[in-house]
């Protein structure tokens, strides 16, 4: 059997030096954790700051006269509302309204920059090209992204980069010495993401390490996003799930021009959703994993878990699940036994901005 050849980010050597545990992820060899461990990395982001290599994520450039029209036709949010250097959460849907991927769309002076999940990068680029006319779609190959997250993240970025970020609003970006710094993230904390030339990425990473920033892997990225109730492709999203079911109707703008999936999503909006994403806090310590079945308290099937973990902040198991009917109390099946849980706000962690 041929071994899969895994891609490496420009920070691969840094991860090795730091003693990271590397795992295959979406065709990349990525750090899942460092010697501190997932819980410590998680807490570093909640209390101070942590740095993530997100160089596996797809950076796609859409440029030319038809760039805005292309983005508008392909994605659900209204890119015409973006001011210069602003970004928005958006979704790429199929004609049935199913999610092909969730995206961050930046309006930059020379082009629109689309950040896609690593596993979907090629599909997203192909999909965008299918909507193209007088515009071109290509990978923003020479650049990669790092994510610095936590209450002290922006302060640290200011110090390391000698940049002024205090006035940088959420979902806005600035260009600073060939680095795009945006106030964005995927952890439920304040923070910024840095899009930097691949040739400069290691130097920038090392500068943050010198400041004592905790390096964080995919494990902590997952527990942090889960505690914040943020969806992940392959768990909460796939092509049989719509943005409305996931609770992201706000990122679908029916009042703009035609876009892929519009008719199906409009019909769903008027007829009602088949399922809805909820948060569940469980009693006991057993952790519900993806696929665990959810029942009403009297035993009727209600849905399934899409992601579950031990919440380091709440010190208990939490899960995201799609339910076909509203419920306040549920039972989740783990290894044949049923554990009671209550349905809660998806943003499990209080005070998530």
């Amino acid at each position, binding site marked *: 059997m041929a071994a899969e050849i895994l891609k490496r980010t420009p920070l691969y050597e840094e991860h090795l030096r730091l003693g990271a545990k590397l795992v295959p992820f979406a065709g990349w060899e990525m750090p899942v*954790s460092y010697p501190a461990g997932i819980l410590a990395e998680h807490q570093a982001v909640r209390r101070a700051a942590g740095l993530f290599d997100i160089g596996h994520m797809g950076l796609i450039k859409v440029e030319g006269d038809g760039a805005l029209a292309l983005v508008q036709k392909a994605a659900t949010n209204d890119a015409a509302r973006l001011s210069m250097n602003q970004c928005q959460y958006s979704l790429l849907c199929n004609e049935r309204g199913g999610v092909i991927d969730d995206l961050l769309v930046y309006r930059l002076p020379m082009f629109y920059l689309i950040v896609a999940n690593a596993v979907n990068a090629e599909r997203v680029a192909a999909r965008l090209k299918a909507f193209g006319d007088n515009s071109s779609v290509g990978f923003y190959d020479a650049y990669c992204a790092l994510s610095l997250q936590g209450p002290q993240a922006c302060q640290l970025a200011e110090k390391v980069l000698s940049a002024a970020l205090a006035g940088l609003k959420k979902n806005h970006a600035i260009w600073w010495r060939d680095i795009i710094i945006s106030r964005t993230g995927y952890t439920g904390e304040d923070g910024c993401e840095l899009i930097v030339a691949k040739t400069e990425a290691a130097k920038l990473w090392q500068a943050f390490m010198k400041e004592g920033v905790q390096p964080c892997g995919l494990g902590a990225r997952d527990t942090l996003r889960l505690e914040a109730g943020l969806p992940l492709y392959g768990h909460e999203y796939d092509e049989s799930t719509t943005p409305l079911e996931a609770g992201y109707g706000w990122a679908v703008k029916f009042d703009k021009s035609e876009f892929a999936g519009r008719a199906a999503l409009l019909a769903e909006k008027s007829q009602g959703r088949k399922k809805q994403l909820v948060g569940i806090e469980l009693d006991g310590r057993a952790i519900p994993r993806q696929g665990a079945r959810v029942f009403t308290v009297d035993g009727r099937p209600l849905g399934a878990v899409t992601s579950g973990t031990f919440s380091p902040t709440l010190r208990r198991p939490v899960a995201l699940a799609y339910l076909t009917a509203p419920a306040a109390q549920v039972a989740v099946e783990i290894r044949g036994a049923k554990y009671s849980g209550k349905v809660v706000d998806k943003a499990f962690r209080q005070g998530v901005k």
Partner: protein
Amino acid sequence: MIFPENLKYSKEHEWVKADGTVAAIGITDYAQDSLGDVVYVEVPPLGKELAAMQEFGVVESVKSVSSLFCPVAGKVVDRNAALEKQPELVNDSPYDSGWIIKVEMANPADLNSLLSAADYQKLLK
């Protein structure tokens, strides 16, 4: 990583420490390191009869869940109650305060089929 000489090891990464006919069972330093932060250990009720290499519980880390296998046949006579509140003992002290269950061995000769510390370490290479 540490693999004490006085213990016996299974290919499934459990260790066994025999004291007369009672065997304490836990997971190895290698296993706890591979799992990462342990957040839950599920163990069988007292009195449960286990066959050699029967699955008897699970260890959950933040990231994954792993089955536990009982390297020797016997009856569960003790469970480490401290793990209910502090499952991280499995990481911090895998061979000592992180022990998981004790069984009254049905057949102490089961120990002979287990690996020595040296053989177990060869398996890891």
